[in-house]
């Protein structure tokens, strides 16, 4: 007995070693640049590092921005949860035809650059969009009745559009493996549906739910492109104001103070979450998906599911359809000045992608750009999994361990960090050999990994954490070393979560623009960088090319996600 407990102790002793690689990575590529830029920024102030904080908390317009940042993030997260949870439930509990396709379609939203999403929404809701034209015709109106751009509603809608896939994947996947017998038992014991949901299902789901909600909240909290492009200049989040203070006003001390405040909020939220989660997570018997999925039996059930899926796919794919359609059509005003638009189908925009009209040095054929994007994405997946898996494993092994309590919130920090601050941090910190990475293409997968890392850990930790310790202990007692325990117990049980994690890393890398633009070498542009290049030039041909390339980005991303799903080696079912 003594030998056994010693053996078990020796296993747990080694778990903190798992933190070495992830923390070393964060230390070099995150904390070091960040501390550098903050020190330099505060150093430029005339009146010490405290003055900018006083300025923030005594300036009404800045306080208003702080309040708005919280308010819009809270509302956006609430709507995203409301909209996503029924989908997570459907995907978790019922056999649906084309579920992978549904998931892939909802995931495309995640990678699209903001300007493209704005263009897509405008094709529907803009002043000359389908919806407005239809309403004007039906109601005989002179002016378009729907206003979209520059409204608060546009911000909320875009946040739901972008982040619903996080709920579907993180919550849906965990839910799918919850043992339905627990709920069935509750029903047999006389609980009604509501009681079962409140007393059984929700408590069991909490770790995944809180994880997903936290990620969505932080994404909304640090929102930049959506606020600028769709919300318009009247709305500003902290992230927008940091950019404004840094670039436009060059008030680096104030920008640094705002960055730290944004970071502090992220940290506080994450610490709160960690505390909560350590109490809430409980070991479960996860079940293979084939045992948890049912068919939709009743016609009411089918009708509700159908209506919901129609709404889900409507919101998440109609803008994509508009985008694809627009990339295949030429719209021109008739020369008679009547304002009537003529629409012709065309493939010109795709054809023109391969043409270097003015022999520009930085011309990149689309196929090369696709290869570059895929290369960066592959590197990001490999790096994010290599770093995220040990971190998630250590975290899952013992959430209450001091190392987990301290390190877990740190993992989330990169998401709460202003891109422009960190980008400038790279420039001043990573400037000497052996780490002179300032003009290196290597910076891109590194930056993408910083963003993807928390997602990988979030996808893996709940699944790893819910494995009953008894299984591991039994294996250990039977002579398996921790490597074997991982190989034969943990890996098969989390195989599915591993793929969710890989898909997140892949999509984040494919769509990332902010950091990429900051460290981009013009010879190696990713697809989003190319899209922005075309969008920033006048001429209908450039606009068409941007939309054509966006369509290609959608297709590549969807194909990539479906491919990763296919490679799935070990669903829980193999156990």
């Amino acid at each position, binding site marked *: 007995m003594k030998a056994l407990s010693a053996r078990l102790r020796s*296993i747990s002793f*080694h778990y903190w070693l*798992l933190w*070495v690689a992830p923390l070393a990575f964060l230390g070099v590529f995150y904390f070091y640049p960040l501390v550098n830029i903050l020190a330099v920024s505060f150093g430029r102030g005339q009146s010490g590092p405290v003055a900018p904080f006083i300025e923030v908390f005594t300036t009404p317009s800045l306080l208003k921005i702080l309040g708005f940042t919280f308010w819009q993030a809270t509302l956006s997260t609430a709507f995203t949860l409301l909209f996503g949870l029924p989908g997570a439930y459907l995907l978790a509990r019922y056999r649906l035809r084309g579920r992978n396709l549904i998931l892939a379609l909802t995931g495309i939203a995640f990678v699209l650059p903001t300007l493209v999403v704005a263009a897509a929404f*405008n094709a529907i809701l*803009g*002043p*000359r969009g389908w919806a407005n034209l239809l309403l004007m015709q039906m109601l005989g109106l002179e002016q*378009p009745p729907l206003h979209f751009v*520059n409204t608060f509603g546009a911000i909320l809608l875009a946040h739901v559009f972008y982040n619903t896939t996080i709920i579907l994947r993180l919550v849906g996947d965990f839910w799918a493996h919850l043992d339905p017998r627990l709920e069935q038992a509750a029903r047999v014991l006389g609980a009604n549906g509501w009681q079962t949901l409140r007393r059984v299902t929700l408590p069991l789901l909490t770790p995944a739910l809180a994880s997903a909600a936290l990620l969505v909240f932080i994404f909304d909290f640090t929102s930049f492109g959506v606020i*600028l492009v769709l919300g*318009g*200049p009247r709305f500003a989040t902290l992230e927008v104001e940091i*950019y*404004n203070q840094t*670039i*436009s*006003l060059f008030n680096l001390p104030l920008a640094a103070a705002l960055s730290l405040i944004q970071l502090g909020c992220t940290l506080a939220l994450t610490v709160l979450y960690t505390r909560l989660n350590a109490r809430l997570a409980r070991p479960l018997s996860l079940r293979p998906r084939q045992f948890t999925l049912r068919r939709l039996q009743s016609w009411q059930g089918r009708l509700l599911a159908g209506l919901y899926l129609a709404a889900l796919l409507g919101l998440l794919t109609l803008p994509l359809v508009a985008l694809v359609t627009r990339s295949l059509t030429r*719209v*021109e*005003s008739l020369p008679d*000045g009547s*304002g009537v638009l003529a629409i012709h189908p*065309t493939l*010109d925009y795709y054809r023109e992608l391969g043409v270097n009209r003015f022999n*520009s040095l*930085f011309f990149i054929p689309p196929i090369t750009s696709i290869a570059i994007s895929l*290369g960066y994405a592959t590197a990001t997946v*490999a*790096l994010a999994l290599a770093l995220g898996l040990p971190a998630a494993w250590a975290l899952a092994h013992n959430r209450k361990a001091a190392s987990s309590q301290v390190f877990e919130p740190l993992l989330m920090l990169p998401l709460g960090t202003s891109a*422009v601050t960190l*980008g*400038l941090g790279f*420039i001043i910190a990573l*400037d*000497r050999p052996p780490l002179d990475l300032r*003009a290196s293409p*290597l910076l891109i997968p590194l930056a993408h990994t910083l963003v993807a890392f928390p997602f990988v850990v979030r996808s893996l930790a709940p699944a790893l954490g819910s494995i009953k310790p008894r299984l591991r202990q039994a294996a250990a007692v039977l002579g398996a*070393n*921790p*490597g074997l325990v*991982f*190989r034969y117990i943990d*890996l098969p049980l989390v195989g599915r979560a591993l793929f969710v994690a890989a898909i997140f890393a892949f999509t984040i890398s494919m769509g990332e623009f902010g950091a990429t*633009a*900051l460290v*981009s*070498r*013009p010879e190696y542009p990713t697809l989003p960088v190319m899209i*922005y290049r075309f*969008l*920033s*030039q*006048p*001429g*209908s*041909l*450039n*606009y*068409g090319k941007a939309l054509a390339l966006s369509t290609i980005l959608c297709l590549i991303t969807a194909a990539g996600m479906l491919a990763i799903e296919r490679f799935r080696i070990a669903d829980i079912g193999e156990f």
Partner: protein
Amino acid sequence: MNTRTSCSRNKKFSLAGIRLTILIVLVLTACTSTTPGPVTSLPVATPITELRTLRVMTHDSFAISEAVLAAFEAENGVKVQFVKSGDVGTALNKAILSKDNPLADVFYGVDNTFLSRALTEGIFEAYNSPGLAGIPDEFKLDAENRALPVDYGDVCLNYDKAYFAKNNLQPPVTLDDLLKPEYKSLLVVENPATSSPGLAFLLTTIGNYGDPGYLDYWKKLVQNDVLVVDGWETAYNTEFSGAAGKGARPIVVSYNSSPAFEVIYAEPPVEQPSSAAIVSPKTCFRQIEFVGILKGNQNRDLAEKWVDFMLSKTFQEDLPLQMFVFPVNPQAKLAETFTKYLQQPQETANSEAAASPANIAAKREAWLKAWTEAVLR
């Protein structure tokens, strides 16, 4: 995904941390070796001696013809490496923050609205290029020649010709016209805090109405339902009715060159652009872009050659079709498309005292703050 096969039975767990580290190193080195090679099709000369490298830091919009660059490289036995660093403001901030250990030898792209920041921070070394001789004085804003003018672009109102023809309306001629009821809800402009043409238009209004008169003007513009959006892309592509997005507003703040590019980048080819620029006196603002040799550079001689090259006729004639801006060197000839479709303002708002370079340097930040408070909040 070979985690399945990579754990052999006999290895001790204590090695796992090390193995992970090795894995990460492998991944990192794999990234280096699988990075796509240079994709430009430059003529590859067999180097007899090792080529020197000149590093040029610039913004996202920089472009150049392959042949023009190849000629420079061949003539001077140099390889030019471009470091792009985001928009103008971001690129400039990077140059300033890295001035003790500069990323490049030369910086190109700072414009007359950001010039004072670059000069105050002292990132440039002076260079009296012989190329300056032929360039008109109006472009030379730094007497010490630390920043040398390369090109300019005029930010002007553009209008949708079809809309005005259909409604039998004359396009506005002065900024005052924009306050008239017949132009209500027609104008879309960019936020000067996030957009460079937006800032140029703000400076146009300051040139016309002075400080604080411009704030009154903007309040009236707001009453006449001006639409303010974040950047040029949204204003021009999405909201403006005379361009590809077919928005709802027929007047936009853009460049005087935009209509010409509507012809150049039209599919199928068109005879006339769908839009036109308004170039009446004091309604445009001229943006001038500068190049400078960065302090702490490694290649002063090559950097000088590059600056001379940017002022030369060859490079200056390459500018318009690559970067949508125009040469400051009067010897450079414009392509026929431009002489046919380009309307040049005779008198820009830059000549007004309120919008003088000294005033911009002193008040830029204060104007932006005041504008934001007055128009947005």
